């Protein structure tokens, strides 16, 4: 310590001189220069401009079955990452937009009088609890809503030179109001028209749709089966229990076999594809069966398709032809003219 201290003391006088020099320079600095420096300093970075926001919602989809004049509450939890983010929950009407389960959300917030539901918000904006009370009705009907959490950026970000982007995340609330536990069912299988023949070389894939002709949503189950000419089931694929909203269609998909751990829950959807083997030839029956969750058969469609080894047959014929051509050309080249051969031997 004693050795170091003198060294430090040597530095201090020089640093003192430097600081005095800097002070003198600072005092000679013009007022305008200071203002400019300060402006540059504070204007040079605006952390809000680079601000990112992350939103996460749970649960993302809620299905509610509600009797008239009954109430049910559901709490949604929004998690945000980002400073000073103001969150505003809004309810919008949602409509099915395609056969893959996507919805289209109305741009304008919901007008409460337009639906047979009374919805009450309570709790903080990040974890609102919505209480739904169904109106008195004697027929089943659906209401599809989207709870949109709009993350408003902090006021510091508002700058006339910048375009502001507002991220929003939504949860779907799908409500069926029904006086009884028996719902109307009217389903129709569409686009399930196999061709007469199918080449066994290629996988057999179908994209049928299930149309729900009732105003209430349904989550049917079912089975896709392929039966060989001998009556043996060569494929049995359970259908993925997709939800079909009222007056909409949904693509029918199969269910991937579950892991033992996942045995009691629906697994991932997969296309209705079957790859025939060389034994699967002849007329095969394609059977689509739609059932309720309880197992009651709603609809069954059966079509016949001939599985033929078209490509294998073409390739085999080509091979035979090539072999014959080869033999013929080979035979010609191997048989020299007899007169030339006899002359050679004779000489």
């Amino acid at each position: 310590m004693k050795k170091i201290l003198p060294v430090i003391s040597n530095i201090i006088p020089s640093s003192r001189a430097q600081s005095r020099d800097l002070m003198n320079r600072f005092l000679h600095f013009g007022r305008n220069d200071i203002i400019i420096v300060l402006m540059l300093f504070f204007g040079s970075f605006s952390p809000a401009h680079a601000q990112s926001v992350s939103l996460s919602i749970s649960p993302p989809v809620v299905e509610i079955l509600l009797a008239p004049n009954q109430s049910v509450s559901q709490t949604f939890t929004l998690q945000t990452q980002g400073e000073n983010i103001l969150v505003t929950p809004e309810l919008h009407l949602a409509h099915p937009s395609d056969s893959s389960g996507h919805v289209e959300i109305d741009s304008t917030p919901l007008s409460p009088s337009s639906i047979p539901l009374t919805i009450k918000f309570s709790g903080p904006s990040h974890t609102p609890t919505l209480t739904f009370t169904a109106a008195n009705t004697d027929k089943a009907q659906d209401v599809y809503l989207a709870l949109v959490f709009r993350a408003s950026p902090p006021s510091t970000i508002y700058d006339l030179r910048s375009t502001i982007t507002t991220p929003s995340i939504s949860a779907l609330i799908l409500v069926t109001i029904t006086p009884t536990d028996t719902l109307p069912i009217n389903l129709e299988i569409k686009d399930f028209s196999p061709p007469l023949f199918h080449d066994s070389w290629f996988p057999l894939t179908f994209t049928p749709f299930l149309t729900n002709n009732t105003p209430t949503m349904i989550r049917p189950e079912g089975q896709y089966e392929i039966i060989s000419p001998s009556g043996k089931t060569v494929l049995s694929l359970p259908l993925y229990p997709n939800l079909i909203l009222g007056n909409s269609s949904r693509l029918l998909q199969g269910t991937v076999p579950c892991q033992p751990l996942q045995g009691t829950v629906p697994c991932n959807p997969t296309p209705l594809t079957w790859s025939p083997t060389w034994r699967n030839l002849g007329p095969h029956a394609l059977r689509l069966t739609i059932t309720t969750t309880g197992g009651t058969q709603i609809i069954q469609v059966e079509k016949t398709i001939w599985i033929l080894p078209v490509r294998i047959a073409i390739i085999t014929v080509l091979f035979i032809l090539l072999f014959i051509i080869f033999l013929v050309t080979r035979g010609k080249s191997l048989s020299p003219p007899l007169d030339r051969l006899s002359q050679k031997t004779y000489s």
Partner: protein
Amino acid sequence: MVNINSKLETRNSKQILNSKKSKLFPISNFLFLICLVCFVFLTSYFGFPKTVHAQTLTSPSFTIRQGNFNMTSGTKTSTNYNLTDTMGQTAAEFFSSTGYHVKAGFQYMYTLYDFSFSISSLAINLGTLTPNAFTTASHTLTVTAPGQGYSVTAYETARLTNAYGDTISDTICDSGPCTETSAEIWTTATNNGFGYNVIGDDHDPDFTTASYFRPFPDFSLSESPATVMTTASAGKNRVGTVTYKVSPGSSQAAGDYSTQIIYIATPVY
């Protein structure tokens, strides 16, 4: 002469046959080769379906976090009941007694990750604009969606507007007109306007390349939001890069122009 000739002919024909036999031996090799090719060909052909089946097995993006969530989780089939509705027996009984039934979550089960949406930057500063020249800025949208996918829609609250109410029109692209739902190539700066492009995961197929742009739907004109990212399968950290592009006309009034772009991420039901 005749005898000699006949002997010679007999001998010659024997020689020819012998030579043919020796030449025919490679033909059996050829046949063997054909058989080998056929075997390899058929083996590979009949091997393909097994590969397809393997590809359709479980996805690593979907894992059960909790087995039993509510009363409808568990096996949904039973031989003891037949209902004509969509509910299972327990659900029907519960509904009859309470008057309500709620199922929450992606297929009523928890997954390892939640539905989330993030945006890399809230403010887009396009800087100082030059007439008939492109200015661009970009940021990223990131979506994580278990279940069966998601969609992100977007719209602008109004056109790019300055403090005096002057506006920069939405782009109609080069050969045009590109619309709110149909992107077109936009590379000529004299075709003035404001538009955007999205490239990355699950971007709308309309944006074929980074040169394809389209205008935002205008909320003030009651236009419907446009889909910018969409998929029908589960995905984690799906990133789309949004590029904003503007080219003002030479007669555009000077000033600071801005607007607000709203993005909404929605899960698949």
